[in-house]
């Protein structure tokens, strides 16, 4: 409960942090009585609000995806990137940027190719999951697919010119500012479906804590769970990578943090916790980005790790005492 108040609080803080001061009434008007002549309202509608929503969607979505992966593979080092889904995205984005065709280099083109890449690689790993019985082999296959496409990305980078390289590098640094107001509805719908589906997996995820063998003896259909988990992760990771670039760290760190804070393996609590802490974490990180924007423009990917890593080490050390 407290967590959800905190989300709202930080969401508001986030909306009002930025280089341009905007009054409260402009916010209300920007949403309900939109006046396209008013610069402040344009900023609210086209920049602040989408950015705030994307911080919540990406933080919560990646954290939930990470939680699912860690649970399925019984490995705290797993994250939404582990199966090569976001590298798949990167590969397709690299292809489309290097292709030099104007449509593919445009924002929409990049988003589309990132989505296609994520979905395609999600399907590939899903196909493999039908044939492999053991989770650790599946994990290995995922990592192999990831490094293979990572290598392809490097090759593409090395043969591309400076301008293309710059576009790709900036995309790969991650950004919450690429989304427009009109796209929000679609993004949120997909996000809510993806996260909503995870609640149907609570029973299975709780049992999976015992390992897939014991879970199967407790009546869990492991194959079904696996398909759902990979499917949901691909959708969430693909969506977020497409619109924000490959955001690292959050999906790996937040679920672990949530387990430390809530001290439970009840996945109802863990899912809700991941949504809340993930969203708050991204909001805080992006508030920092905005506050520092006057002096230097930092990519979100740098901030998440710079703020998050010391914090998590601190929590772990504190817990050891």
């Amino acid at each position, binding site marked *: 409960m407290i967590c959800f108040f905190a989300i709202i609080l930080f969401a508001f803080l986030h909306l009002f942090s930025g280089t341009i001061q905007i009054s409260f009434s402009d916010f209300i008007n920007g949403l309900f009585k939109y006046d396209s002549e008013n610069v402040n309202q344009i900023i609210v509608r086209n920049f602040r609000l989408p950015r705030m929503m994307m911080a919540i969607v990406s933080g919560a979505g990646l954290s939930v995806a990470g939680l699912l992966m860690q649970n399925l593979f019984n490995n705290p080092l797993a994250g939404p990137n582990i199966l090569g889904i976001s590298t798949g995205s990167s590969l397709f984005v690299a292809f489309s940027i290097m292709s030099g065709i104007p449509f593919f280099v445009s924002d929409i083109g990049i988003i589309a190719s990132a989505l296609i890449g994520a979905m395609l690689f999600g399907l590939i790993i899903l196909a493999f999951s039908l044939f492999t019985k053991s989770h650790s082999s599946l994990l290995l296959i995922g990592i192999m697919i990831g490094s293979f496409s990572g290598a392809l990305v490097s090759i593409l980078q090395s043969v591309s010119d400076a301008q293309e390289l710059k576009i790709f590098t900036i995309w790969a640094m991650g950004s919450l500012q690429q989304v427009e107001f009109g796209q929000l509805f679609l993004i949120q719908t997909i996000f809510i479906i993806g996260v909503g589906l995870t*609640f*149907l*997996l*609570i*029973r*299975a995820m*709780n*049992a999976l*804590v*015992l*390992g897939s*063998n*014991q*879970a*199967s*003896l*407790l*009546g*869990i*259909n492991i194959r079904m769970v696996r398909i759902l988990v990979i499917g949901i992760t691909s959708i969430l990771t693909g969506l977020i990578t497409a619109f924000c670039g490959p955001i690292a760290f959050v999906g790996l760190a937040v679920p672990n943090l949530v*387990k*430390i804070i*809530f*001290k*439970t*393996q*009840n*996945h*109802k609590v863990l899912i809700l916790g991941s949504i809340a802490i993930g969203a708050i974490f991204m909001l805080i990180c992006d508030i920092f980005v905005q506050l520092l924007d006057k002096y230097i423009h930092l990519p979100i990917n740098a901030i998440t790790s710079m703020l998050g890593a010391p914090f998590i080490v601190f929590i772990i050390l504190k817990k050891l005492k």
Partner: protein
Amino acid sequence: MIRFENVNIGYHEALLKVKFTELTRGHAYALIGENGSGKSTFLKTISGQISPFEGRLLINDLDSNGIVNKERSRLISFVPTQTAVISNISVFDFVGLGRTPYLNALGRFSKKDIEIIELAMSQLNISHLRQKMLNELSDGERQLSAIASAISQETPIILLDEPTSYLDYRNKLLVLEKVKDLAKTQNKCILFSTHDLDMVSENLETVVCARGKNKQLELLLGKISKEKLIEVAFNFV
């Protein structure tokens, strides 16, 4: 309850031939035999983790191969030798995982579930550990929790792989008594593997013996002396 029709167990080759036809309700069976004689393979075969190499295995008159996970989880519970040391889970929640087959997708306990979990914990004298974290327990306490979890699963068949291996003398007796009591009073069919031949010889009249060298699984009935058990189990005769 568990019927064997010309069953040979084993992974890739016939390991042991089952020489009896049925394990019935109302009995606790000890499963003895040397290391590597196939005790765990036998338990895994019954619990459906591997198929019989040959022949037909019938659980409650259903062919074991045709039973889906969901049905099986309400017929058979299985306690592995070693319980994984899981962090961030309380004993209550751990024992409660035994209720998984009866929960809906959201995994919420009903009042009845909670009563059953409490009862299972009190039967094994671990109620006071309810709020403790599983990774803070001793090996023995963790083993008792795993057994409580199987009891809360409320299945007619309970399989335990060396349930007494980490227990002290008193808890060994407790588990043995509990197992015999559950089999009688609740009419269950319980099969547990063990190396504690002393306890088996004095207390049980139903012993399944895996004789690796003869490639046979035999059912021994009636009270049998320890010496005789050793002779049979270790192939001196």
